[in-house]
Structures are given as structure tokens and as C-alpha cells.
């Protein structure tokens, strides 16, 4: 279990770490470096990928499915034989900054070096210092299961040429210190865009689509973090963003699926100062024109009323007839950006498999929604999801029974 880090004190330490702001003398003791490293490791959500289900923390082995095959996360405990025990600070920095392994071979960008390249050298040093304090775990890394030609690591040279922009974070002098801190976290260690930005066929973030929503994989769609009023964060206050990242839910939404993991393993540990910085940065994105028409998507009337009936029978006990949920308990569907996301996979996923909210000190209960896959067929799920995405002023593109079927086949059951 992670020790809960209290905000004060650490906030100050983190606040100092923007770019190269730390004067050499202030690095102080190893202890403070390690503590700072722990917070940075939390901010980077390293545990989520580098810990297998039921496995030892940071010993790797988690299967990360990609469109190109399965990649297994690696052992980042300080075991000399199987972990990073023999890695020098410089070698570790090269991995973070350039995506190059100790043996000089390329890493795949499932390891988010396109974001980590922005992390300052001092922060990387602190991260390594913390990882070096972990109990070494002797656990061999599993070979990747990528198909040719991607299984030849040299091809990443070309990929990097095309899509990788090496370079540490450069503060924008026109923006506030808080904004810059937020940008550093979101665009760097936080690697939010790894999920929340759409990718091209080669798995690289599309330019111009930054944080406008993306595919996490495994039939989870990461919604837009832009200022979109319908499917972005336009309706969220900074305080609501902070509450969501700190506790896993706010009056507008609750984290489910991979984002619940992110909250559980990462954002709940961020200091209030950092969370406010993230919120300030995200809230500063330009308001863009809503891609969806202003009218609800044209749903077949009969299908809509079937969906409404299904909603009434299955969902109103928690989400209420008006879709507003119950304050502090069950998340609203009305006005939810995740519900109205461009891609319906997340909603379909949650209906089929259920979901569990992150249990954090601020919201201990960790409410879960049961699975409905055993009860509703593909057409019913499609009707229900289309209703939810187009009722109470919501609007979003329609889904189909075929699309539901694909999600059903692709997911593992999370509940009931």
C-alpha cells in the first residue's frame, strides 16, 4: 500500500522542480531526493504499467496490448540481473529522455518517452534515486510479442525521425509559473496525451489533436481534455478537476476503468499545488467549435423509447430518472463529457462489464456498478447507450449493435 502523502511540504518541494529550477545546494540530502523521487514516480503513474496484476510492485510483466502486438512492461526494481540495478544515472536518463535502453537498443513508445523526454534531468535523477530504494525483485522481463517488422527495434529509428521530438520542457515565459508547472506535468511525466490524444496508424500522437480524446485500447476511450463544453472539460471548474484527480470523482463524473487506476496509483498522491497547476493548464486550452451538431443525434424514435425503457428498468436506481445521479454518491450521466465522448466504447464497456470507482481517502466507499452483459443483448445495449448519450440535452454519435458486439468480444469482465 502506498503511504498517503500529505500535501504540505512536498508541494513546496515539487513546486521547485520546474525545469532546472533547483539550485545545486538545495538538492540537499539523499532523503529529500528520494522523497521527491517517490512523488515523481507517483506523478508518472509508473506503478500502473510496471506492476503486473497480483505481481510485485515495479517488477514489471504486465501485458500491454497494442495494435501491433503485446508488449510487457519491464522490471524497474534495482535487481542487478533482471531490473535496473546496474543502470547508471546517465543510462536511465537516456531511456527517459531518448527512449534508448541500457544496451543501446530502442525502446517502444508504449514506454512514454515521447512525453518523458520533457522531464528535467534533476527530476529523472530523483526518480532513479527512489527506484534504487525499492526491494530488488528477481524477475526476468518477458520478450515482446510484436509482429515483423516492429519486432526489430531498429525500425524505431525511423519512427523517432518521424514522430519523436526530443527535448526537455521549456517554460513559456508569457505564462504563469503555475501554468508552466501544469504544462510540465501534463505534457511530461503525467503523459496524459498517451491516452487522451488520438494516434495515427503507427501509434504516434496526431499533431493538432492534442488532448482532444484518444483510444486507450481494450475498448476504453479516453475523453477530450480540451475546453469543449459537451465532451471536454469546458463545464468543469478548476476545483472540480482537482477533486476528480484527487478523489476519483466529482459532481460531473467518476473515473472508471484505466482512469480509476490512474487516480488510484497516481493523481491522488499529487500535491494540491500540482493538481491546481494541472487544472490551470488544462483550463487554458482554447474553446473550440463542437464537432457534434447542436441537435441530438437523429435516433430512431422507437429505438430511443426502447432505450428509455431499458434505462428506467436498469439504471434509475442509482443514476436517477433525470440522469443527474446522486450528489457525492452516483455520477451523473447528464452533461457528462465521458458519456458524450466522440467514441462510445467507454459507455458500452461500463454497461457490459460494470466499473469500480477508485477508493481514495477522500472517497473511501469505492462504489461499483454491476455488469449488465448477462442481461442485455447487443441491440439492447446499443439502444440504451444511444438513449443515455442523447437524453437530457446530451448528444453524441450513435452506436450500433455491431459495435457493441465488438466491445463485448474484446473485454474481460470486471464485475458481476
Amino acid at each position: 500500500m502506498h503511504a498517503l502523502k500529505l500535501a504540505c511540504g512536498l508541494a513546496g518541494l515539487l513546486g521547485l522542480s520546474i525545469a532546472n529550477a533547483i539550485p545545486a545546494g538545495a538538492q540537499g540530502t539523499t532523503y529529500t531526493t528520494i522523497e521527491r523521487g517517490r512523488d515523481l514516480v507517483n506523478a508518472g503513474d509508473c506503478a500502473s504499467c510496471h506492476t503486473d496484476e497480483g505481481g510485485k510492485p515495479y517488477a514489471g510483466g504486465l501485458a500491454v496490448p497494442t495494435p501491433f502486438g503485446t508488449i510487457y512492461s519491464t522490471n524497474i526494481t534495482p535487481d542487478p540481473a533482471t531490473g535496473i540495478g546496474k543502470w547508471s544515472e546517465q543510462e536511465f536518463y537516456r531511456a527517459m529522455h531518448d527512449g534508448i535502453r541500457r544496451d543501446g537498443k530502442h525502446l517502444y513508445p508504449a514506454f512514454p518517452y515521447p512525453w518523458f523526454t520533457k522531464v528535467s534531468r534533476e527530476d529523472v535523477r530523483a526518480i532513479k534515486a527512489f527506484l534504487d530504494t525499492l526491494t530488488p525483485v528477481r524477475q526476468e522481463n518477458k520478450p515482446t510479442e510484436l509482429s515483423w517488422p516492429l519486432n526489430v527495434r531498429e525500425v524505431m529509428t525511423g519512427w523517432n525521425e518521424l514522430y519523436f521530438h526530443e527535448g526537455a520542457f521549456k517554460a513559456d515565459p508569457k505564462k504563469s509559473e503555475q501554468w508552466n508547472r501544469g504544462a510540465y506535468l501534463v505534457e511530461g511525466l503525467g503523459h496524459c496525451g498517451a491516452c487522451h490524444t488520438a494516434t495515427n496508424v503507427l501509434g504516434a500522437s496526431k499533431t493538432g489533436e492534442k488532448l482532444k480524446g484518444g483510444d486507450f485500447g481494450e475498448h476504453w476511450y479516453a475523453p477530450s481534455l480540451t475546453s469543449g463544453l459537451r465532451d471536454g472539460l469546458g463545464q468543469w471548474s478548476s476545483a472540480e478537476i482537482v477533486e476528480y484527480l484527487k478523489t476519483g470523482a466529482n459532481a460531473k463524473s467518476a473515473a472508471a476503468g484505466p482512469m480509476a487506476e490512474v487516480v488510484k496509483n497516481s493523481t491522488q498522491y499529487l500535491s494540491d499545488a500540482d493538481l491546481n497547476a494541472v487544472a490551470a493548464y488544462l483550463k487554458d486550452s482554447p474553446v473550440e467549435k463542437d464537432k457534434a451538431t447542436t441537435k441530438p443525434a437523429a435516433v430512431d424514435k422507437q429505438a430511443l423509447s426502447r432505450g428509455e425503457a431499458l434505462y428506467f428498468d436498469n439504471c434509475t436506481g442509482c443514476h436517477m430518472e433525470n440522469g443527474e445521479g446522486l450528489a457525492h454518491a452516483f455520477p451523473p450521466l447528464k452533461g457528462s463529457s465521458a458519456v458524450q465522448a466522440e467514441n462510445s466504447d467507454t459507455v458500452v464497456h461500463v454497461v457490459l462489464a460494470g466499473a469500480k470507482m477508485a477508493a481514495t481517502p477522500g472517497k473511501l466507499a469505492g462504489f461499483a456498478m454491476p455488469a449488465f452483459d448477462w442481461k442485455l443483448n447487443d441491440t439492447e445495449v446499443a439502444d440504451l447507450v444511444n438513449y443515455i448519450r442523447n437524453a437530457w440535452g446530451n448528444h453524441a454519435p450513435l452506436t450500433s449493435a455491431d459495435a457493441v458486439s465488438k466491445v463485448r468480444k474484446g473485454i474481460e469482465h470486471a464485475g458481476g
Partner: protein
Amino acid sequence: MATKLKSVDAVLVGFGWTASILAKELTDAGLQVLAIERGKFRDTVPDFATTHIQDELKYAVRHGLFEEPARETLTFRNSLDQEALPMRHLGSFNPASGVGGAGIHWNGQNWRFLPTDFKIRSHTEARYGKNFIPADMTIQDWGVTYDDLEPYYDKFEYLCGISGQAGNVQGKIQPGGNPFEGPRARAYPLPPLKRSYATVLFDKAAKDLGLKPFPCAAANTSQPYKNPYGVQMGQCTYCGFCEWFACGNYSKSSPQTTILPALLPKDNFSYRTLCDVTRVNLDSTGKRATGVTYVDVQGREFEQPADLVVLCAFAQHNVHLLLLSGIGKPYDPRTNQGVTGRNYAYQITSSVNVFLKENMNPFMGAGALGQAVDEFNGDNFDHGPLGFIGGGYIALWTTGGRPILQQHGAPKGTAKWGGGWKKSMHENYLKSVSVATHGSVMSYRGSYLDLDPTYRDVYGNPLLRLTFDFHDNEYKMSKFETDKAALIAKAMNPQSIKINYREGHYSILPYETTHNTGGAAMGADPKTSVVNRYLQSWDVSNVFVMGSSVFPQNPGYNPTGTVGALAYWAADAIKTKYLKNPGPLVQA
């Protein structure tokens, strides 16, 4: 040969309401705590999911959440001259098995006992004279007072998020509440549930008769609620599936919905499921417990050493374990000597079916959605001319309208089967309700628990034997209550009513309530009680006993509120008194 395990500070037998409370309080005090539960782990999702749980056949008829008599049961007889036989099916009570215990499948009817309930013998003798108490009635004061327990009642109510209307706040009578309740420090955490139409009619009828009806306090949340442990609850949907079911949307108070999210992540707490505790082990002096022995589901036996042993199982099971372990002298009804097994009591109930003229929509209900009157409970009325002790509340509950077991029957004269029955059911299902009485049962020399001389369980241990019957005092009291209920029923302006008095010997077969009490009675005198006022064994001071097994007799209310209050009271005594100076908290 038992495998000896590493010692813990405190071992809890069972993992229901009282164990959860003790575990939270003792781990907060820094103790390493282990709970051992005979059933499985369960949680709201996936086990109680809304789309699964409203299944009357699976849960109410086939007992999906209860203990299995094939694994653990008891023998029963009405009187000492009979031979007790083992129960092979559950009957008049339904104990649970599994994490959360019966806190999972209760209705959520949450009451405080009356101040006079806690000093029933001294109060009765003072008001009516010593001779008013029959010679074979073994009632006794609790050794703890209402005022002692008030802060702990409050704690349990705020843990659960009880919905209700206070009747007496710091001595000030509150309009709309129960004017007979003891003074409470503050109002309930949540307002009462929405009323059903039937409770509105009951309310009016009771007022017309000059009574003071009030909404029953419910462990079904009328609004979302966050308790002092930081655990959030949802809001009741009035789905009508509380009793014998689990709640699917986090709105019925249970260990799972109020404590476990704050308890389970703690490093100094652990639990083991599917393990039967078979003994509390004592050292050579017999004055100190060294831990417990348990058997896991694979039949392996383990010895779990502990500095403190707290029995948190269901009432009879606590007593069974005390008897098997030789804690306290077994009670002998012939000599009236001994304590363990003494003063078993139960509840006496009756009802009046009311067939109304309008639709009541009984399917919209909640386990504790009810309106009650308390004029005829405890000593709220003059018993002098009546010649009995005790009483009960009279209530109209709208707990649900399930199709198999929960329709209120048909009026007198209706055919019991076939077309005539169907027609009557069709006409009356939406229009019939029931006014219930919930009566106290006193304790007697002939009502007790001991070890069966013949029948043994799977481990070769003697089964627990229950000897119990209703007495004249209870029949008189129940008749009195039922007649009062009938008066209210008639005042509801029905088409007809049907009075169901409680008659004949106690039968363990039809369901009545799961309000089994006594056998490890608390009190001020070690000659008549197993545990002292802090629920600590008189004989083995590092053993505490929780739950309704410590009730010296059974008042006219549902027990859970008092079970919760006593658990907090005992936990506080352990934390603030016992741990500082382990040993007897009251000198015998």
C-alpha cells in the same frame, strides 16, 4: 494436530456487525486484529448487484444468504421433559453466514431500548412490588443504563446513517417522533423515509385513537450519506427487497456499506473466511484465554494465539463456543445454578391483516419503512391491572410486496386454493396490509441453552440444545398488544380485518424473527451473568462477548441498534480501560 500460527493482539470470532465495529475501533487503537469468519467474503458488486439480488426464490425461499444447517445447526425442544431433535432446515430464525453477517440481510429496523428496559427487575419491583414478578421469571437488570449507552447508540446511528424523526432530544419532546424514547443527544442523521400510503392511513387511524404515531427509524438511507468513517452511502430506491436480501445500491446499512471500506485497507487488520472456530483455548488456570482453534474449509486445524478474544458470532453460536470452551459454569435449570446458557429469550409477534378499499401499492417498500406507536411497549403503560410484564411496539411496515411469501393473505372465508383463491388474491394484493405487534419475551428458568447429550456436529462436538417455550406472561401480553393493533386496524376504515393471535406452543418452524437473545447474559452479579457491564467474561478476563447473546431478556424492539451500541460501548472500555490495565474491569 493443530498448526500453531503467529500471535495477534486480538482475534474476533465472526465478521459481521460487531466484529466490524470492534475491528475498526481496535485497529484505530493500534492493535493487530484478525477476524475469523465461517462464511465467504461478499460485497455489493458483484454479489448483491441490483440486477441479481431481487430474486425471491433464490434468497427468501431457498435461503441464499443464510447459514446452512447441513454445516451448523442446533437441537430443539419446548421443555425439559422432551427429547430435543436437530433442526435440518432453518425455521423461526435465519442466522447468516458470511462477511457482514445478518447485517447483510436485515430489514434495517433500528431501535433504542427504553431506559426502563435496562433496569427491568428493579424498576418493576419498585413500581409493582416484588410479587409482581413470577417465581420462575429470571429477568435482571443489565448492569448498564440507557444513559451509559446513549453516546454509543448515537455512534451506531451516525455510522449507519439512520433515517428517522427524533422524539426526545435532550429531554425536549419533539413533535412527530416517539415521545417515549429515552433522551437523545441529537436528532437522527437523516430525515425519515418517504411514507407509503398505508403508513399514512395507519398514522391517521392511530391519531384518531389518541395515540402518538411516528415514522420508524430506518437503516435504509432516505438521502445519500457520508458517515464519520468517511464512507459514502447511496439513497434507498424503495425496491422492496431488504429482509432476507442484500442491498444492491449501497443504501441499507451493513458492515459492507459503512465500515469495511475504511477497515479493509488497514495494514493492522486481516480476516480469514470459510474457517470454523471450534474452541476458545484457555491456559492451565482456566482464567486466561490463549487464543482460538479453528478448522479451515479443507479440514486443517489451526491454533491462533491472541492476547484478546472477542466473540462476535451470532447469539447462539457465541453461547455454543462458551459452552464448548468451558467458559462460565453451564446453567442448570433444575438448580437454577450456573450462568452459561441461562436466560435465553426470543420475540413474540402477532399481526392483524387489514383489507382496505384503496390500492396501497405494497411493492414500493423498504425494510424499515413503517409507522409505529409505542404506547404499549416496555413500561410505558400501567401493567398493574393487567398482570403481565413487558410490551411491544405496534407498527405498519411497508417492507415490500413480493409475490411468493409476502402477500398478506386473503380475507376470512376465502378458498385456500384454486379459482376462488386466485380471484381473492387478485382483488386483495394491492389492498391488503398488516399491522404487526413486536413483543418482548422475558427470561425463565426453563428457557436456556446447553450442549446436546446426543447429537454432534461435523467436528464431533455436541450440538447446542435450545429449550424454549412461550409463557403465560407472554401470551397475555401478546393478546393485549394484538387487541390494540386490531383497534388501530379497524380505525383505518377497512373492508375487513383478520386477527392473528399468537397461540399454542412456540414452534421453531414458521419464521417469526431472528431476534434470539441471551445465553451469555450481562449483569452486575457474576452468579447470574456470564459477562460484566463491559461485556467482559467474569471468569476469563481477556474474553469479551458481543451481540444479543448478552441481553438478559428481550425487550419489545428489534435488537440491532442495541447490539451496535453495546459493541461501541465495549470497544470503548477495551480501548480506554482494558488495554491500559489488562484484567477484570469489574471486581466480582
